[in-house]
Protein backbone atom coordinates (compact mmCIF):
# COMPACT_ATOMS: atom_id res chain seq x y z
CA UNK A 1 0.00 0.00 0.00
CA UNK A 2 2.64 2.52 0.95
CA UNK A 3 5.15 3.73 -1.56
CA UNK A 4 7.79 2.46 0.85
CA UNK A 5 10.07 5.43 0.41
CA UNK A 6 10.23 5.19 -3.36
CA UNK A 7 10.05 8.80 -4.45
CA UNK A 8 8.93 10.06 -7.83
CA UNK A 9 11.92 11.33 -9.73
CA UNK A 10 10.53 14.25 -11.69
CA UNK A 11 8.33 17.06 -10.43
CA UNK A 12 5.00 17.66 -12.11
CA UNK A 13 4.64 14.08 -13.27
CA UNK A 14 1.05 12.94 -13.74
CA UNK A 15 1.60 10.00 -11.43
CA UNK A 16 1.75 12.02 -8.22
CA UNK A 17 -1.33 12.19 -6.02
CA UNK A 18 -0.39 15.62 -4.75
CA UNK A 19 2.08 17.93 -6.44
CA UNK A 20 3.11 21.35 -5.21
CA UNK A 21 5.03 23.45 -7.75
CA UNK A 22 7.20 26.48 -6.95
CA UNK A 23 4.93 27.72 -4.18
CA UNK A 24 5.79 31.18 -2.92
CA UNK A 25 3.78 32.95 -0.28
CA UNK A 26 4.35 36.45 0.98
CA UNK A 27 2.71 38.19 3.97
CA UNK A 28 3.69 41.85 3.70
CA UNK A 29 7.49 41.89 3.80
CA UNK A 30 7.75 38.35 5.14
CA UNK A 31 8.50 35.58 2.70
CA UNK A 32 6.64 32.70 4.38
CA UNK A 33 7.31 30.22 1.60
CA UNK A 34 9.95 30.42 -1.10
CA UNK A 35 9.64 28.24 -4.18
CA UNK A 36 8.52 25.14 -2.36
CA UNK A 37 8.03 22.09 -4.54
CA UNK A 38 7.10 18.61 -3.44
CA UNK A 39 5.33 15.50 -4.62
CA UNK A 40 3.45 12.85 -2.73
CA UNK A 41 2.56 9.53 -4.33
CA UNK A 42 -0.81 7.86 -3.88
CA UNK A 43 -1.00 6.13 -0.51
CA UNK A 44 2.30 7.63 0.61
CA UNK A 45 2.93 9.02 4.10
CA UNK A 46 5.17 12.09 4.07
CA UNK A 47 6.24 13.97 7.19
CA UNK A 48 7.38 17.58 7.22
CA UNK A 49 9.57 18.68 10.13
CA UNK A 50 10.88 22.10 10.87
CA UNK A 51 11.18 24.69 13.62
CA UNK A 52 8.35 27.10 14.42
CA UNK A 53 7.87 29.74 11.76
CA UNK A 54 9.33 27.68 8.93
CA UNK A 55 6.13 27.96 6.93
CA UNK A 56 4.74 24.47 7.58
CA UNK A 57 1.28 25.73 8.44
CA UNK A 58 1.35 28.27 5.60
CA UNK A 59 2.15 25.44 3.22
CA UNK A 60 -0.93 23.58 4.47
CA UNK A 61 -3.10 26.67 4.22
CA UNK A 62 -2.06 27.08 0.58
CA UNK A 63 -2.53 23.40 -0.28
CA UNK A 64 -5.98 23.36 1.36
CA UNK A 65 -6.98 26.47 -0.58
CA UNK A 66 -7.39 28.82 2.39
CA UNK A 67 -4.55 31.11 1.27
CA UNK A 68 -3.75 31.89 -2.37
CA UNK A 69 -0.08 31.46 -3.35
CA UNK A 70 1.93 34.16 -5.10
CA UNK A 71 2.85 32.39 -7.36
CA UNK A 72 2.80 28.57 -7.59
CA UNK A 73 0.47 25.69 -8.31
CA UNK A 74 -1.17 22.89 -6.35
CA UNK A 75 -2.14 19.76 -8.31
CA UNK A 76 -4.16 16.80 -7.10
CA UNK A 77 -4.28 13.85 -9.50
CA UNK A 78 -2.79 16.23 -12.07
CA UNK A 79 -5.73 18.64 -11.72
CA UNK A 80 -4.95 22.25 -10.85
CA UNK A 81 -6.73 23.04 -7.57
CA UNK A 82 -4.71 26.15 -6.65
CA UNK A 83 -6.69 28.50 -4.41
CA UNK A 84 -9.83 26.35 -4.31
CA UNK A 85 -11.21 24.50 -1.31
CA UNK A 86 -12.97 21.18 -0.87
CA UNK A 87 -10.32 18.79 -2.13
CA UNK A 88 -8.34 17.72 0.97
CA UNK A 89 -9.04 16.49 4.47
CA UNK A 90 -7.55 18.90 6.99
CA UNK A 91 -6.84 18.34 10.67
CA UNK A 92 -5.19 20.63 13.20
CA UNK A 93 -3.61 20.35 16.65
CA UNK A 94 -6.83 21.87 17.99
CA UNK A 95 -9.48 19.18 17.59
CA UNK A 96 -12.13 21.83 16.69
CA UNK A 97 -14.95 19.48 17.65
CA UNK A 98 -18.32 21.21 17.68
CA UNK A 99 -19.49 21.07 21.34
CA UNK A 100 -23.20 20.71 20.52
CA UNK A 101 -22.72 17.79 18.14
CA UNK A 102 -22.19 14.25 19.39
CA UNK A 103 -19.22 12.12 18.31
CA UNK A 104 -21.20 10.84 15.32
CA UNK A 105 -22.52 14.35 14.64
CA UNK A 106 -18.96 15.65 14.52
CA UNK A 107 -17.76 12.84 12.26
CA UNK A 108 -20.45 13.66 9.68
CA UNK A 109 -19.79 17.43 9.90
CA UNK A 110 -18.40 17.59 6.36
CA UNK A 111 -21.65 16.23 4.92
CA UNK A 112 -23.74 18.39 7.25
CA UNK A 113 -22.01 21.56 6.03
CA UNK A 114 -22.26 20.72 2.34
CA UNK A 115 -25.09 18.52 1.08
CA UNK A 116 -26.85 17.39 4.24
CA UNK A 117 -26.37 14.21 6.26
CA UNK A 118 -27.83 11.01 4.85
CA UNK A 119 -28.65 7.81 6.69
CA UNK A 120 -25.70 6.25 4.90
CA UNK A 121 -23.33 8.95 6.22
CA UNK A 122 -24.47 8.23 9.75
CA UNK A 123 -24.09 4.46 9.33
CA UNK A 124 -20.62 4.89 7.91
CA UNK A 125 -19.64 7.31 10.69
CA UNK A 126 -20.89 4.94 13.37
CA UNK A 127 -19.01 2.02 11.86
CA UNK A 128 -15.82 4.03 11.39
CA UNK A 129 -15.87 5.48 14.90
CA UNK A 130 -16.75 2.16 16.49
CA UNK A 131 -13.98 0.39 14.57
CA UNK A 132 -11.29 2.83 15.61
CA UNK A 133 -11.67 3.00 19.35
CA UNK A 134 -14.77 5.12 19.90
CA UNK A 135 -17.22 2.30 20.52
CA UNK A 136 -19.48 3.24 23.39
CA UNK A 137 -18.92 6.96 22.87
CA UNK A 138 -20.84 7.41 19.63
CA UNK A 139 -23.63 9.50 21.17
CA UNK A 140 -21.42 11.34 23.66
CA UNK A 141 -20.79 15.05 23.54
CA UNK A 142 -17.11 16.03 23.04
CA UNK A 143 -16.71 17.54 26.53
CA UNK A 144 -16.90 14.03 27.99
CA UNK A 145 -13.91 12.76 25.96
CA UNK A 146 -10.19 12.79 26.74
CA UNK A 147 -7.72 14.67 24.53
CA UNK A 148 -6.71 11.49 22.70
CA UNK A 149 -10.30 10.45 22.10
CA UNK A 150 -11.13 13.91 20.80
CA UNK A 151 -8.29 13.69 18.26
CA UNK A 152 -9.62 10.30 17.16
CA UNK A 153 -12.97 11.90 16.48
CA UNK A 154 -11.23 14.74 14.62
CA UNK A 155 -9.38 12.25 12.41
CA UNK A 156 -12.59 10.28 11.77
CA UNK A 157 -14.22 13.55 10.69
CA UNK A 158 -11.27 14.18 8.37
CA UNK A 159 -11.58 10.68 6.88
CA UNK A 160 -15.36 10.96 6.48
CA UNK A 161 -15.09 13.75 3.89
CA UNK A 162 -13.70 11.09 1.50
CA UNK A 163 -10.78 13.09 0.19
CA UNK A 164 -7.73 11.05 -0.80
CA UNK A 165 -5.23 13.60 0.48
CA UNK A 166 -5.06 14.25 4.23
CA UNK A 167 -3.20 17.23 5.66
CA UNK A 168 -2.46 16.63 9.33
CA UNK A 169 -0.98 19.68 11.04
CA UNK A 170 0.63 18.60 14.33
CA UNK A 171 -2.47 16.59 15.22
CA UNK A 172 -0.93 15.08 18.34
CA UNK A 173 1.09 18.14 19.40
CA UNK A 174 -1.10 18.92 22.40
CA UNK A 175 -1.17 15.39 23.81
CA UNK A 176 1.05 13.97 26.55
CA UNK A 177 3.87 11.77 25.30
CA UNK A 178 2.25 8.44 26.21
CA UNK A 179 -1.05 9.31 24.57
CA UNK A 180 0.86 10.65 21.59
CA UNK A 181 2.71 7.37 21.08
CA UNK A 182 -0.55 5.47 21.34
CA UNK A 183 -2.14 7.81 18.82
CA UNK A 184 0.81 7.42 16.41
CA UNK A 185 0.40 3.64 16.41
CA UNK A 186 -3.33 4.08 16.00
CA UNK A 187 -2.83 6.46 13.06
CA UNK A 188 -0.53 3.95 11.34
CA UNK A 189 -3.20 1.30 11.79
CA UNK A 190 -5.90 3.54 10.30
CA UNK A 191 -3.63 4.63 7.44
CA UNK A 192 -2.59 1.08 6.58
CA UNK A 193 -6.22 0.00 6.32
CA UNK A 194 -7.72 3.01 4.51
CA UNK A 195 -5.92 3.91 1.34
CA UNK A 196 -5.14 7.59 1.94
CA UNK A 197 -2.26 9.90 1.11
CA UNK A 198 -0.93 11.72 4.16
CA UNK A 199 1.08 14.90 4.53
CA UNK A 200 1.96 15.20 8.22
CA UNK A 201 3.45 18.30 9.81
CA UNK A 202 5.25 17.98 13.15
CA UNK A 203 8.21 19.38 15.01
CA UNK A 204 8.78 16.09 16.77
CA UNK A 205 11.58 14.29 14.90
CA UNK A 206 10.76 10.88 16.42
CA UNK A 207 7.18 11.22 15.27
CA UNK A 208 8.18 12.32 11.77
CA UNK A 209 10.52 9.36 11.24
CA UNK A 210 8.34 6.77 12.98
CA UNK A 211 5.29 7.48 10.82
CA UNK A 212 6.59 8.41 7.40
CA UNK A 213 7.86 6.94 4.15
CA UNK A 214 9.76 10.17 3.58
CA UNK A 215 10.70 13.10 5.80
CA UNK A 216 10.96 16.61 4.36
CA UNK A 217 13.03 19.03 6.43
CA UNK A 218 11.95 22.67 6.25
CA UNK A 219 14.01 25.68 7.29
CA UNK A 220 12.68 29.17 8.07
CA UNK A 221 13.20 32.69 6.65
CA UNK A 222 12.35 32.09 3.93
CA UNK A 223 10.39 28.87 4.38
CA UNK A 224 11.73 26.23 2.05
CA UNK A 225 12.39 22.51 1.89
CA UNK A 226 16.05 22.02 2.75
CA UNK A 227 16.33 18.26 2.51
CA UNK A 228 14.48 15.05 1.91
CA UNK A 229 15.17 11.76 3.66
CA UNK A 230 13.70 8.42 2.65
CA UNK A 231 12.68 6.29 5.64
CA UNK A 232 13.33 2.74 4.57
CA UNK A 233 12.21 1.09 7.77
CA UNK A 234 9.93 -1.86 7.04
CA UNK A 235 6.27 -1.78 8.04
CA UNK A 236 4.39 -2.57 10.16
CA UNK A 237 6.33 -0.48 12.65
CA UNK A 238 5.84 -0.67 16.37
CA UNK A 239 7.45 0.34 19.64
CA UNK A 240 10.53 -1.74 18.87
CA UNK A 241 11.13 0.35 15.77
CA UNK A 242 11.90 3.37 17.93
CA UNK A 243 15.09 1.81 19.29
CA UNK A 244 16.48 0.14 16.17
CA UNK A 245 19.85 1.36 14.81
CA UNK A 246 18.17 2.26 11.50
CA UNK A 247 15.70 4.53 13.27
CA UNK A 248 18.43 6.10 15.38
CA UNK A 249 20.65 6.94 12.42
CA UNK A 250 17.75 8.47 10.50
CA UNK A 251 16.82 10.51 13.53
CA UNK A 252 20.43 11.70 13.85
CA UNK A 253 20.44 12.80 10.21
CA UNK A 254 17.19 14.74 10.54
CA UNK A 255 18.38 16.40 13.77
CA UNK A 256 21.65 17.30 12.05
CA UNK A 257 19.78 18.90 9.16
CA UNK A 258 17.49 20.80 11.53
CA UNK A 259 20.18 22.16 13.80
CA UNK A 260 22.97 22.43 11.26
CA UNK A 261 25.30 19.94 12.97
CA UNK A 262 27.30 17.26 11.23
CA UNK A 263 25.17 14.19 10.58
Amino acid at each position, binding site marked *: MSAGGGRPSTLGSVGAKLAVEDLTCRFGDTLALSEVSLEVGAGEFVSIVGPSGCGKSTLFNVV*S*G*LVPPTPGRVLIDGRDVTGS*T*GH*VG*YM*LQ*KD*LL*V*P*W*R*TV*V*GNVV*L*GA*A*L*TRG*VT*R*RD*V*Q*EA*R*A*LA*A*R*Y*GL*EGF*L*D*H*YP*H*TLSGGMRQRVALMRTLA*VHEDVLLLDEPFGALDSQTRL*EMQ*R*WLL*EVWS*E*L*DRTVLFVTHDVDEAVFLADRVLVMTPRPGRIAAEIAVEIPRPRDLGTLTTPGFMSLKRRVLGLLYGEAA
Partner: protein
Amino acid sequence: MRRASKYLIPVGAVIGVFVVWDLVIRILDVKPYLVPSPGSALRAIRDDWDVLSGLTWTTVQETALGFVTGATAGFALAVLMSRWALVQRVVYPVLIASQAIPVVAIAAPLVIVFGFGLTPKVLIVAFIVFFPVVVNVLDGLASVDRDLLNLARVMDGRALRVLLLIELPATLTPLFSALKLGATYAVTGAVLGEWTASLTPGLGNYLLVQNSRLNTDAVYGAVLLLAAIGVIGFLIVAGLERMATPWRARSTARRWWRRPAEVGSSPPMPVSEDVSVSE
Protein backbone atom coordinates in the same frame (compact mmCIF):
# COMPACT_ATOMS: atom_id res chain seq x y z
CA MET B 1 -32.07 12.75 47.70
CA ARG B 2 -29.88 14.92 45.49
CA ARG B 3 -32.74 15.53 43.11
CA ALA B 4 -35.07 16.40 45.93
CA SER B 5 -32.63 18.84 47.54
CA LYS B 6 -32.21 20.54 44.17
CA TYR B 7 -35.80 21.77 44.39
CA LEU B 8 -36.21 21.85 48.20
CA ILE B 9 -33.39 24.31 48.82
CA PRO B 10 -34.66 27.17 46.59
CA VAL B 11 -38.26 26.64 47.74
CA GLY B 12 -37.06 26.60 51.35
CA ALA B 13 -35.11 29.81 50.77
CA VAL B 14 -38.22 31.61 49.49
CA ILE B 15 -40.24 30.38 52.47
CA GLY B 16 -37.37 31.53 54.68
CA VAL B 17 -37.67 35.08 53.32
CA PHE B 18 -41.37 35.11 54.22
CA VAL B 19 -40.62 33.75 57.70
CA VAL B 20 -37.93 36.40 58.35
CA TRP B 21 -40.26 39.11 56.99
CA ASP B 22 -43.00 37.95 59.37
CA LEU B 23 -40.61 37.74 62.36
CA VAL B 24 -39.22 41.25 61.76
CA ILE B 25 -42.78 42.67 61.67
CA ARG B 26 -43.68 40.87 64.92
CA ILE B 27 -40.48 41.51 66.86
CA LEU B 28 -40.12 45.19 65.89
CA ASP B 29 -43.88 45.62 66.11
CA VAL B 30 -44.08 47.40 62.74
CA LYS B 31 -47.45 49.08 62.17
CA PRO B 32 -49.51 47.27 59.49
CA TYR B 33 -50.10 50.50 57.53
CA LEU B 34 -46.32 50.92 57.15
CA VAL B 35 -45.37 47.36 56.23
CA PRO B 36 -47.93 44.54 56.35
CA SER B 37 -47.10 40.99 57.35
CA PRO B 38 -46.71 38.48 54.51
CA GLY B 39 -49.91 36.84 55.69
CA SER B 40 -51.97 39.98 55.23
CA ALA B 41 -50.35 40.68 51.84
CA LEU B 42 -51.34 37.18 50.68
CA ARG B 43 -54.82 37.67 52.15
CA ALA B 44 -55.14 40.91 50.19
CA ILE B 45 -54.40 38.98 47.00
CA ARG B 46 -57.02 36.37 47.85
CA ASP B 47 -59.70 38.90 48.82
CA ASP B 48 -59.25 41.01 45.69
CA TRP B 49 -58.55 38.11 43.32
CA ASP B 50 -61.54 38.84 41.06
CA VAL B 51 -59.94 42.17 40.11
CA LEU B 52 -56.32 41.08 40.43
CA SER B 53 -56.59 38.05 38.12
CA GLY B 54 -57.55 40.27 35.18
CA LEU B 55 -54.87 42.84 36.00
CA THR B 56 -52.23 40.13 36.38
CA TRP B 57 -53.19 38.72 33.01
CA THR B 58 -52.77 42.17 31.40
CA THR B 59 -49.33 42.63 32.93
CA VAL B 60 -48.32 39.09 31.94
CA GLN B 61 -49.36 39.80 28.35
CA GLU B 62 -47.37 43.04 28.22
CA THR B 63 -44.34 41.35 29.73
CA ALA B 64 -44.45 38.27 27.52
CA LEU B 65 -45.17 40.07 24.25
CA GLY B 66 -42.53 42.71 24.95
CA PHE B 67 -40.01 40.04 25.94
CA VAL B 68 -40.53 38.00 22.77
CA THR B 69 -40.52 41.12 20.58
CA GLY B 70 -37.32 42.48 22.14
CA ALA B 71 -35.53 39.12 22.09
CA THR B 72 -36.47 38.40 18.46
CA ALA B 73 -35.51 41.87 17.25
CA GLY B 74 -32.26 41.79 19.24
CA PHE B 75 -31.28 38.37 17.91
CA ALA B 76 -32.08 39.28 14.30
CA LEU B 77 -30.23 42.58 14.52
CA ALA B 78 -27.15 40.92 16.06
CA VAL B 79 -27.02 38.36 13.24
CA LEU B 80 -27.35 41.12 10.62
CA MET B 81 -24.66 43.15 12.36
CA SER B 82 -22.27 40.20 12.40
CA ARG B 83 -22.89 39.50 8.68
CA TRP B 84 -22.19 43.03 7.47
CA ALA B 85 -19.41 44.98 9.15
CA LEU B 86 -20.86 48.24 7.81
CA VAL B 87 -24.21 47.59 9.51
CA GLN B 88 -22.38 46.94 12.75
CA ARG B 89 -20.34 50.13 12.51
CA VAL B 90 -23.42 52.22 11.78
CA VAL B 91 -25.83 50.56 14.22
CA TYR B 92 -23.66 49.95 17.29
CA PRO B 93 -23.14 53.61 18.30
CA VAL B 94 -26.85 54.29 17.75
CA LEU B 95 -27.73 51.32 19.97
CA ILE B 96 -25.45 52.45 22.76
CA ALA B 97 -26.86 55.98 22.57
CA SER B 98 -30.39 54.57 22.70
CA GLN B 99 -29.59 52.75 25.93
CA ALA B 100 -28.36 55.98 27.49
CA ILE B 101 -31.93 57.32 27.23
CA PRO B 102 -33.82 56.63 30.49
CA VAL B 103 -36.65 54.19 29.80
CA VAL B 104 -39.04 56.44 31.70
CA ALA B 105 -38.18 59.28 29.33
CA ILE B 106 -39.17 57.40 26.18
CA ALA B 107 -42.42 56.16 27.71
CA ALA B 108 -44.18 59.52 27.35
CA PRO B 109 -43.38 60.11 23.66
CA LEU B 110 -44.33 56.47 22.91
CA VAL B 111 -47.78 57.12 24.35
CA ILE B 112 -48.16 60.15 22.08
CA VAL B 113 -47.38 58.03 19.04
CA PHE B 114 -49.05 54.72 19.95
CA GLY B 115 -51.83 55.77 22.32
CA PHE B 116 -52.80 54.15 25.61
CA GLY B 117 -53.20 50.57 24.38
CA LEU B 118 -50.94 47.56 24.69
CA THR B 119 -48.38 48.76 22.11
CA PRO B 120 -46.39 51.36 24.08
CA LYS B 121 -46.02 48.96 27.03
CA VAL B 122 -44.87 46.13 24.78
CA LEU B 123 -42.36 48.48 23.15
CA ILE B 124 -40.95 49.61 26.50
CA VAL B 125 -40.46 46.01 27.63
CA ALA B 126 -38.91 45.17 24.26
CA PHE B 127 -36.58 48.17 24.56
CA ILE B 128 -35.26 46.86 27.88
CA VAL B 129 -34.86 43.22 26.77
CA PHE B 130 -33.41 44.07 23.36
CA PHE B 131 -30.01 45.53 24.26
CA PRO B 132 -28.46 42.71 26.35
CA VAL B 133 -29.64 40.24 23.69
CA VAL B 134 -27.85 42.15 20.92
CA VAL B 135 -24.62 42.46 22.90
CA ASN B 136 -24.56 38.83 24.05
CA VAL B 137 -25.47 37.33 20.67
CA LEU B 138 -22.75 39.43 19.02
CA ASP B 139 -20.28 38.13 21.61
CA GLY B 140 -21.40 34.57 20.90
CA LEU B 141 -20.94 35.00 17.17
CA ALA B 142 -17.50 36.52 17.70
CA SER B 143 -16.50 33.64 19.99
CA VAL B 144 -16.61 31.06 17.18
CA ASP B 145 -13.08 29.74 16.61
CA ARG B 146 -11.58 31.18 13.39
CA ASP B 147 -9.92 27.83 12.77
CA LEU B 148 -13.27 26.07 12.91
CA LEU B 149 -14.63 28.47 10.28
CA ASN B 150 -11.50 27.82 8.19
CA LEU B 151 -12.09 24.09 8.57
CA ALA B 152 -15.65 24.62 7.34
CA ARG B 153 -14.20 26.45 4.33
CA VAL B 154 -11.75 23.62 3.59
CA MET B 155 -14.76 21.28 3.69
CA ASP B 156 -16.50 23.58 1.15
CA GLY B 157 -19.22 24.32 3.71
CA ARG B 158 -22.20 26.32 2.43
CA ALA B 159 -22.51 29.72 4.11
CA LEU B 160 -26.08 29.15 5.32
CA ARG B 161 -25.26 25.72 6.75
CA VAL B 162 -22.19 27.08 8.52
CA LEU B 163 -24.37 29.83 10.01
CA LEU B 164 -27.07 27.40 11.14
CA LEU B 165 -24.87 24.55 12.38
CA ILE B 166 -21.80 26.33 13.76
CA GLU B 167 -22.34 30.06 14.31
CA LEU B 168 -25.90 30.30 15.62
CA PRO B 169 -25.60 27.44 18.15
CA ALA B 170 -22.55 29.25 19.56
CA THR B 171 -24.83 32.14 20.51
CA LEU B 172 -27.23 30.02 22.59
CA THR B 173 -25.36 30.14 25.90
CA PRO B 174 -24.79 33.94 25.90
CA LEU B 175 -28.30 34.43 24.44
CA PHE B 176 -29.89 32.62 27.36
CA SER B 177 -27.80 34.63 29.83
CA ALA B 178 -29.32 37.76 28.30
CA LEU B 179 -32.81 36.25 28.28
CA LYS B 180 -32.61 35.31 31.97
CA LEU B 181 -31.70 38.91 32.81
CA GLY B 182 -34.40 40.11 30.45
CA ALA B 183 -37.09 37.91 31.98
CA THR B 184 -36.76 39.71 35.31
CA TYR B 185 -36.21 43.21 33.87
CA ALA B 186 -39.21 42.81 31.58
CA VAL B 187 -41.66 43.08 34.49
CA THR B 188 -40.12 46.41 35.48
CA GLY B 189 -40.64 47.61 31.91
CA ALA B 190 -44.29 46.57 31.96
CA VAL B 191 -44.93 48.42 35.25
CA LEU B 192 -43.17 51.57 33.97
CA GLY B 193 -45.30 51.42 30.84
CA GLU B 194 -48.49 51.10 32.86
CA TRP B 195 -47.54 54.09 35.02
CA THR B 196 -47.18 56.27 31.94
CA ALA B 197 -50.03 54.99 29.80
CA SER B 198 -52.83 53.69 31.96
CA LEU B 199 -56.09 53.20 30.09
CA THR B 200 -55.79 49.40 30.09
CA PRO B 201 -54.91 48.84 33.72
CA GLY B 202 -52.50 46.20 34.94
CA LEU B 203 -50.80 45.41 38.24
CA GLY B 204 -48.68 48.55 38.04
CA ASN B 205 -51.75 50.79 37.97
CA TYR B 206 -53.38 48.80 40.77
CA LEU B 207 -50.23 49.27 42.86
CA LEU B 208 -50.28 53.06 42.37
CA VAL B 209 -53.99 53.34 43.18
CA GLN B 210 -53.71 51.23 46.35
CA ASN B 211 -50.59 53.14 47.40
CA SER B 212 -52.45 56.45 47.17
CA ARG B 213 -55.11 54.93 49.44
CA LEU B 214 -52.40 53.77 51.90
CA ASN B 215 -53.74 50.25 51.41
CA THR B 216 -50.34 48.68 52.08
CA ASP B 217 -51.71 45.11 52.21
CA ALA B 218 -52.83 45.43 48.59
CA VAL B 219 -49.60 47.21 47.56
CA TYR B 220 -47.51 44.36 48.91
CA GLY B 221 -49.89 41.86 47.38
CA ALA B 222 -49.31 43.47 43.97
CA VAL B 223 -45.54 43.46 44.56
CA LEU B 224 -45.68 39.74 45.33
CA LEU B 225 -47.63 39.07 42.14
CA LEU B 226 -45.15 41.12 40.07
CA ALA B 227 -42.26 39.21 41.63
CA ALA B 228 -44.04 35.94 40.84
CA ILE B 229 -44.36 36.95 37.16
CA GLY B 230 -40.61 37.69 37.01
CA VAL B 231 -39.65 34.44 38.77
CA ILE B 232 -41.93 32.30 36.61
CA GLY B 233 -40.58 34.03 33.50
CA PHE B 234 -37.04 33.30 34.65
CA LEU B 235 -37.87 29.64 35.33
CA ILE B 236 -39.46 29.24 31.89
CA VAL B 237 -36.35 30.70 30.24
CA ALA B 238 -34.07 28.50 32.35
CA GLY B 239 -36.14 25.44 31.38
CA LEU B 240 -35.92 26.36 27.69
CA GLU B 241 -32.17 26.78 28.09
CA ARG B 242 -31.80 23.25 29.41
CA MET B 243 -33.77 21.92 26.46
CA ALA B 244 -31.92 24.02 23.88
CA THR B 245 -28.39 23.33 25.16
CA PRO B 246 -28.38 19.66 26.21
CA TRP B 247 -24.60 19.35 25.71
CA ARG B 248 -23.96 21.56 28.73
CA ALA B 249 -25.69 19.36 31.26
CA ARG B 250 -25.63 15.91 29.65
CA SER B 251 -22.86 13.56 28.55
CA THR B 252 -24.85 11.91 25.73
CA ALA B 253 -27.50 13.09 23.31
CA ARG B 254 -31.13 12.44 24.21
CA ARG B 255 -32.45 9.28 22.63
CA TRP B 256 -35.10 11.03 20.52
CA TRP B 257 -32.48 13.45 19.23
CA ARG B 258 -30.10 10.78 17.98
CA ARG B 259 -29.79 10.11 14.32
CA PRO B 260 -31.91 7.28 13.01
CA ALA B 261 -29.35 4.64 12.03
CA GLU B 262 -28.70 1.21 13.41
CA VAL B 263 -25.31 0.40 14.86
CA GLY B 264 -25.61 -3.19 13.77
CA SER B 265 -25.99 -2.61 10.02
CA SER B 266 -22.68 -2.73 8.19
CA PRO B 267 -22.01 -0.15 5.49
CA PRO B 268 -19.51 -0.82 2.70
CA MET B 269 -16.13 0.12 4.11
CA PRO B 270 -12.67 -0.45 2.67
CA VAL B 271 -11.32 -2.02 5.83
CA SER B 272 -10.02 -5.46 6.58
CA GLU B 273 -11.80 -7.70 9.05
CA ASP B 274 -9.17 -8.62 11.59
CA VAL B 275 -8.59 -5.31 13.28
CA SER B 276 -7.89 -5.01 16.95
CA VAL B 277 -8.26 -1.54 18.27
CA SER B 278 -5.28 -0.43 20.28
CA GLU B 279 -6.31 1.37 23.41
